[in-house]
């Protein structure tokens, strides 16, 4: 059954990608991208990668289509028919790459074999010992936040860099920052009362759910990144329905910008604390006397840092994009 679902999902993925190649028009493409995100997330569930599925659902089917939609709202959804068409060159290049990839797969260990080299060398230790060493059942969380915590710091810096880059690129005039809530509230002819009422009841629960995901990451799928995305989604939902100025009044842009740096600093300072006591960077053992307890504290704190940065950077990016829209429209 699992194998059959696997094959069906892969075929659906190929269909979606092929449709993306053929279809013209940006909104249609974005919808297909969103479907692609959902499909790949389902595929990750089949492949036992629950944390990845969680993230891909939130990012591939949620945030990235949303950002694409915001841009298309500014730009228009038209796509020229033959612009930049270099099909022959493209086919050649893609053909070479594909051939190389196929060559690469030929000597690969068969799919799903438990004795593949990747499952024999580094990973077994995580599965065997991470329970004792960190006291956290979700191995993905313990590898992410402890064994390879430095990668995760890099990840937080990447998202922070994206926030800085977006503000830097979209800043205009003499104003520094992501949004200028200068315009009047977007009151449309059609205030969407039903949507507003329903969403308003949901948003608190979404934020609550974000906190659950933040702190439940040790035991099941979830963690700082996913929680940050969900939190930001709740805020963005509010912004979509009540307009940018309304949300900016509640969550002020400069504060969010500072928070995006704050999350990184929380993470970094946790690492530096260990250095000050003569242990390597990000060695959590200095945080408490009991090593397992120390690991748990460390992981919790840095996941918090991740959550703060991710949520605030996504909100900052939303502000910057939506601001483009409003200044463009007026």
């Amino acid at each position, binding site marked *: 059954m699992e194998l059959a679902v696997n094959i069906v999902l892969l075929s659906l993925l190929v269909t979606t990608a092929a449709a993306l190649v053929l279809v013209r028009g940006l909104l249609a493409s974005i919808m297909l991208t969103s479907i692609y995100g959902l499909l790949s997330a389902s595929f990750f569930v089949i492949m036992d990668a629950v944390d990845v599925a969680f993230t891909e659902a939130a990012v591939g089917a949620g945030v990235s289509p949303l950002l694409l939609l915001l841009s298309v709202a500014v730009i228009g959804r038209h796509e020229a028919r033959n612009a930049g068409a270099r099909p022959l060159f493209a086919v050649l290049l893609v053909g070479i790459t594909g051939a190389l990839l196929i060559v690469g797969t030929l000597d*690969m260990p068969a799919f799903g074999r438990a004795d593949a080299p990747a499952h024999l060398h580094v990973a077994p230790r995580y599965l065997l010992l991470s329970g004792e060493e960190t006291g956290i059942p979700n191995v993905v969380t313990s590898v992410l936040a402890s064994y390879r915590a430095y990668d995760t710091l890099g990840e937080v*810096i990447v998202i922070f860099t994206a926030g*800085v880059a977006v503000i*830097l690129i979209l800043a205009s005039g003499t104003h520094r920052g992501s949004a200028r809530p200068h315009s009047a509230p977007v009151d449309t002819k059609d205030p969407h009362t039903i949507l507003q009422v329903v969403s308003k009841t949901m948003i608190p629960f979404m934020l609550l759910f974000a906190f659950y995901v933040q702190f439940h990451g040790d035991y099941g799928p979830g963690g700082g990144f996913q929680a940050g995305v969900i939190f930001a989604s709740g805020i963005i939902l509010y912004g979509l329905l009540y307009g940018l100025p309304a949300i900016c009044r509640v969550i002020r842009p400069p504060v969010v910008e500072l928070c995006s740096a704050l999350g990184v600093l929380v993470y970094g300072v946790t690492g530096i604390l260990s250095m000050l006591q003569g242990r390597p960077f990000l060695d959590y053992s200095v945080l408490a006397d009991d090593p397992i307890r120390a690991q748990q504290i460390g992981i919790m704190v840095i996941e918090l840092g991740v959550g703060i940065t991710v949520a605030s950077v996504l909100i900052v990016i939303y502000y910057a994009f939506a601001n483009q829209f409003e200044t463009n429209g007026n």
Partner: protein
Amino acid sequence: MISHLAVLPVLLPLVGAPACVVLRRPGAAWAFACGVAFLAFVAASHLLVQTRELGVISYALGGWAAPWGIEYRIDLLNALVLVLVSAMGMTVLLASRASVRGEVDPSRHSLFYVAYLLCLAGLLGIVATGDAFNLFVFLEISSLATYALVACGRDRRALIAAFNYLIMGTIGATFILIGIGFLYMTTGTLNMLDLAVRLPQLGESQTVFAAYAFIVVGVCLKLALFPLHLWLPGTYTQAPSIVTAFLAATATKVALYVLVRFSFSVFHLETSRLALSLEAIFITLGVVAAFAGSLVAIYATDLKRGLAWSSIAQVGYMAISVGIGTAAGLQAGLIHLFNHALMKGALFLAVAAYVLRVGGTTFRELRGIGQRMPLTTAAFVVGGLSLIGIPGTAGFISKWYLVMAAMESERWLLAFLVVASSLLTAVYIWRFIEVAYLEKPESGKASPQKPAGMLLTCTLLLALANLYFGFDTRLPVSTSAGAAANLLGARTP
């Protein structure tokens, strides 16, 4: 405290950047960034001294031992590149204040320095790490920051350049990701040292071959090796001059480092059956790049664009040295890596000063600039002579070692071609000298003198460095000799 030396050069700018966000005044942000970059440079220099004394330094991040955790592994090669990148990053940053004020919108100033620090941290992180996936993460940090920095250029074409760079850079990074995935699949590890131990046990595997191919193509995209150079001329021409100086002096050098690291430390290029064909590919592409880049540079009407093409030519020399693949060849490549950073730093900082003074870099605008800006132009000329490889400059040393390495491996034609392409370099540098000293300035268009003392000082400093390392060659030569020996020695332990 001393045991943390390995991680400090990366960590300081990495944590300094978010702290810098708090500073809203551009002047304060600049000063803070300079301080951070200076500390990183000091740490990197100490690290170099220490590796020269003690050999390889390993630092287990998070306290987890190597293949399970992430490791920083500093040998002579990393340490040299770390010093180079942090030194150039610091110098260009010190020089940047006036130029940024002149070329970038005021609303962007303070975050500009944050992005600069992030880019520096990313580049240093790539060099310091001993973990293949960690390398990818830091590559993306530096790339994202670079796209934003390039987009700060005044002309709207800067946006197109940044976008093209983003597309190509991301394709390159994704290729590297595919390569790392293939490696992980066949070996089960991500640690470079561990990979180097485990890869030979696999014998001839198509997967390993494909992995190497994807990593090389990805890195060469970042390195702008011909024919993957398409993003470079636009990016260098349109970016703010400071960013161009920074990228030219650091980013391609780091990419070369990654290429060398993967080819020799991880993949044991010599023992693999690919060695012969790869040698030929690198040498051919390098020679073509050296000639094509120089030829385009000769016909350029814009100084900045000409220098950008010259960078492509210089990358060609480095590719040649990797292709030669002997200890002497690698040493020549590393010396050239070091010296070229000094030359291009000096040249592009001088260009930044020109932009500040006359508002542009076309040869028409630069007529007679030698009389109006004697010191800056003198520095430019020194950099240019070094680029040609005139004896007495740093450039001569690297050309000398490169030609020697080619002759040592009995590639006489190659040695001849290297010398011949240097003559092309002389043509476009001479063309500038002619414009700068022998032609009359255009009358009527004299923009007010802007205070740019720091910029001038740093430009002169780099020009002097070009002269200094032309005489006192101990630092680059001995370090790179040690590094090259390490790289090749790792093969037959």
